[in-house]
């Protein structure tokens, strides 16, 4: 589904990602865990084409993603739900969702809208409200719903639980798992390592822009070093 090979990402003089290689197989939930500044978000940005890579390659099947501009990558079925939700504040919930389906034909878009509203009934209640008036959790639902509108094969989620009440976090993660059961591949970046490892099949641990550990999520959850560093005990 997704192959990163020796990817480097730079911000000016700063090297954020140094030679990361990882794979995400079809139908998997893969988690990237690591401290702030470990390079997790940078990897997602590199995949979605928002930030250019300075070395290595990113491929999905035959397609070299890093050669495409950002707006073309969505058309490859890769959707990126960034950190901080970034709901369009002035646009209504419906408009927000419709924007998620911008790459689709109009009829198809309306169809997807029904599906997404089915997944998040809360959004259906708020359909005419501007995005900015929603609560944090609702905004997160909207952000995920919007990312799903294009009917992606791979969904990249950046910190979906950030700043949410625990109950809401559970709702969100349940939705993610349900989507996964429906065949969606998920690449997750999460600070809440306990939750993340609980839902995912495999995980990579990043430090200073490099992969230091990788393996099955359950194995990593049992790893003493990981427990000490990320699971608080």
């Amino acid at each position, binding site marked *: 589904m997704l192959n990163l090979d020796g990817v480097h990402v730079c*911000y*000016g003089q*700063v090297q*954020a990602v140094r030679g990361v290689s990882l794979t995400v197989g079809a139908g998997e939930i893969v988690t990237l865990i690591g401290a*702030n*500044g*470990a*390079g*997790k*978000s*940078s990897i997602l*940005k590199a995949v979605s084409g*928002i*930030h*250019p890579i300075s070395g290595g390659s990113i491929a999905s099947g035959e397609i070299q993603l890093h050669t495409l*501009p950002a707006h073309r990558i969505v058309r490859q079925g890769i959707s990126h739900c960034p950190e*901080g939700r970034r709901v369009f504040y002035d646009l209504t919930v419906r408009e927000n969702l419709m924007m998620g389906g911008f790459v689709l034909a109009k009829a198809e878009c309306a169809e997807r809208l029904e599906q997404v509203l089915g997944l998040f009934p809360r959004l259906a209640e708020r359909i005419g409200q501007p995005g900015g008036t929603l609560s944090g959790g609702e905004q997160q639902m909207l952000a995920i719903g919007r990312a799903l509108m294009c009917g992606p094969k791979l969904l990249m989620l950046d910190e979906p639980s950030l700043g949410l009440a625990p109950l809401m976090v559970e709702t969100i993660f349940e939705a993610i798992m349900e989507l996964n059961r429906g065949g969606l591949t998920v690449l997750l970046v999460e600070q809440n390592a306990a939750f993340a490892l609980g839902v995912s099949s495999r995980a990579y641990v990043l430090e200073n*822009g490099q992969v230091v550990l990788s393996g099955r999520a359950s194995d990593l959850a049992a790893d003493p070093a990981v427990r000490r560093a990320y699971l608080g005990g």
Partner: protein
Amino acid sequence: MPENGLLRGPLFSYLGLILIFLPFLRERVWLVLPIMLGGRLLHWGADRISASLALQTWREKAVRRAGRNAFAISLALFAVAALIPFFSSGYVTDILTSVVLYSILATALNITVGLSGILVLGFIGFYAVGAYTTALLTAKFALCGFWLALPLSGAAALACGVVLGAPALRLKGDYLAIVTLGFGEIVRIFANNLDSFTGGPNGILGIPRPAIMGWQLASPVAFYLFVLTCLGVTLLIVTRIIGSRYGRAWIAVRENEMAAAAIGIDVFRKHLLSFALSAFFGGIAGSLFAVKQGFISPDSFTFFESVLVLCMVVLGGIGNPAGAVAGAFLLVAVPEMLRDFQLYRMLVFGGVMVAFMVFRPNGIMGSLTFALEVDDSRDEREGLP
């Protein structure tokens, strides 16, 4: 990165658009086409050249080296500038005097635009206040000599700066910009309409040249040397201020207002101070302009002039005092050099301005720190791991 489609598409389409004007074309218009073509080709060439990293590092090194020896270099440049009129004509001296006057003006504007990051679109208003103060004091009402009028002109402009700044500086970015634009226009309209006071559109004639110890600065060369000295003093004061604690506070405010406020800098007062200071030097420049021309009228203080001065600051490199001088030189001297293009002068000038920005978006001497600050635009900054 998106492919560079600049070369292929527009050329032919522009040709098409020009053809719309065809029924009215005269033979001479074909001169325009090579210029447009040339512009595109140059752009393409510049892309190629700036792509080579060697140039970038070469430039950085040169800038650093120049930075270390800034004082010596400026002294040498001033010496050269002071000698030029002795080897050239009155016309060149006249142009150079204009360059120096605009340099003072651009340096003054650079205090707000460059150091505090405030966009000012009506800066010429302060210049006008200074010029009219001098004209009224020395010519119209003959109340005092130039040497008293000079600081008074600065003071009058400074007072305007405070009066305008106190309410306006609470506004943000482009809103502030248009308030200053309004100010500039209001000053000009009043100057044009208060006939009995400012002479209306006729302006004020017969402003005497200053005298130093009884020696009238009547000759163009003497006057040129005088304004050059004024520029030197202005630059010295401004660079001193930049290097001081105040200057660093300004830069802090420019880089990040919130953070500056958080460490206890009173952002509003810093802005007001820089605004007033900038107005003061603008007034001084206006006063010098009045005695240079010997005649002022509202025509000299249009919005276009404000924009021209702003262009000097940006073209030279925002926040860099040397850049302001370079920008002034470029924008005064280049149109003069282009006089031989006659009818096409301003057309070519416009084209050169566009080309210049496309080649060197940071200005001729854009300070490196500023360039870096701008490079990480919003999106990337948020993504910094």
